[in-house]
């Protein structure tokens, strides 16, 4: 071989077998099992290059091939001489069937590839925002009762907080920034700016704490699958994209 085809180039034992069948122009329905087993084993010597998970699959297939090979060498049962049963008795039958099944999906995946390429290069846009002060829907569905309830809840919360804090001597630092607010900020920012980088989000940050909160908010948005981030290089700026 002029250039080494490594075993790691194959998706699995079936993929490798197909490579061998095609290379040697074998008939899949009548595979010369001794020949293919030898060729297969040659590739297997390269197995050290595989991670253990995949390696085991290749080794199992080698064992299967050797088993089929040995069965082929056994004399046929003279009692079942008729043609019909000979196919079923072929020790290769199961392997061939599996290979054909695999080939079907391998071929489909080759058809899917160009379909993917077409669509992967389509760019979509974000929704438009209509800012309309007159036709204001900010208060839609909100009643005075809701406002009253909101106030009562705050009052209750405050009362609880007071009773908890009374015993505490130290003055708690007031939370200046919250992840929730930062999430809203980032959402708005990425909606308005196609190419957002993290450094832009933290310009104007008052302190380290705010930067950390911004970072946490970004992580949360990634978790919510609203944005994706990537870096062009290690320590490069984090580039943020809306999903």
């Amino acid at each position, binding site marked *: 071989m002029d250039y080494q085809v490594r075993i790691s180039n194959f998706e699995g034992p079936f993929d490798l077998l197909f490579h061998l069948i095609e290379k040697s122009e074998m008939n899949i329905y009548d595979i010369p099992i001794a020949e293919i087993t030898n060729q297969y084993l040659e590739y297997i010597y390269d197995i050290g290059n595989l991670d253990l998970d995949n390696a085991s699959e290749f080794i199992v297939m080698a064992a299967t091939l050797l088993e089929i090979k040995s069965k082929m060498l056994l004399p046929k049962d003279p009692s079942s001489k008729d043609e019909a049963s000979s196919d079923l008795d072929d020790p290769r039958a199961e392997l061939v069937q599996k290979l054909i099944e695999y080939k079907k*999906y391998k071929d489909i995946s080759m058809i899917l590839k160009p379909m993917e390429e077409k*669509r992967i290069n389509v760019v979509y846009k974000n929704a438009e925002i209509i800012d309309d002060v007159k036709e204001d829907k900010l208060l839609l569905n909100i009643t005075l009762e809701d406002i009253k309830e909101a106030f009562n809840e705050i009052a209750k919360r405050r009362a609880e907080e007071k009773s908890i804090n009374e015993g505490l001597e130290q003055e708690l630092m007031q939370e200046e920034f919250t992840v929730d607010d930062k999430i809203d900020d980032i959402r708005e920012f990425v909606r308005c700016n196609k190419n957002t980088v993290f450094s832009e989000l933290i310009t104007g940050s008052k302190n380290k704490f705010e930067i950390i909160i911004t970072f946490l908010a970004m992580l949360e948005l990634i978790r919510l699958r609203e944005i994706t981030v990537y870096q062009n290089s290690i320590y490069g700026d984090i580039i943020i994209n809306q999903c």
Partner: protein
Amino acid sequence: MDNDLQTYKQISMADDGKEFDIKKIKSIIEGLLFASGEPLSIEDISDILQIEKFEVKKILDEMIVDFDRELRGIQIICFNDKYQMGTRPEHIEYIRKLLNPQSKQSLSRAALETIAIIAYKQPVTRQSIDSIRGVKSDRVIRNLIEKRLVTDVGRLDAPGKPILLGTTEEFLKYFGLKDLSELPKVEDLEI
């Protein structure tokens, strides 16, 4: 401008009985698809325009052809009875110059094989996939689930209640399929 509005009105007037003429409907739908950015369902559009769903579908499918024929820089894509506007793949090099060069990573060979099996054999267990591919597919499947191309669609009523996998709406969009019936026919394959 005035002239255009004139034409607009004339068409509207010519159309007796119906509230809208087809050209105006297409124009409004174009605006809706643009404003939405996201996929719109036939129902959404039918609700907004107060037009029967079958008619909306007919018009949208016509619009897809119109856009292609007129070599528009925008196309309308359809998947799962949803419609969305997008740029044309053949313009990607220019769009890339404009926007961040975020080249989306295409699926690996293993992922394509796996998703082919899931698409045709759904609902299907991991075990079946492994057995067809001859290798463990756990990592590949996890990746496809993360990409939202594949999802958990239930459990098989068998020992261990294995999870059943199927493709998503995103899968249709990803490969440019209107629905699963548009998958390439297996019978056409030469094996």
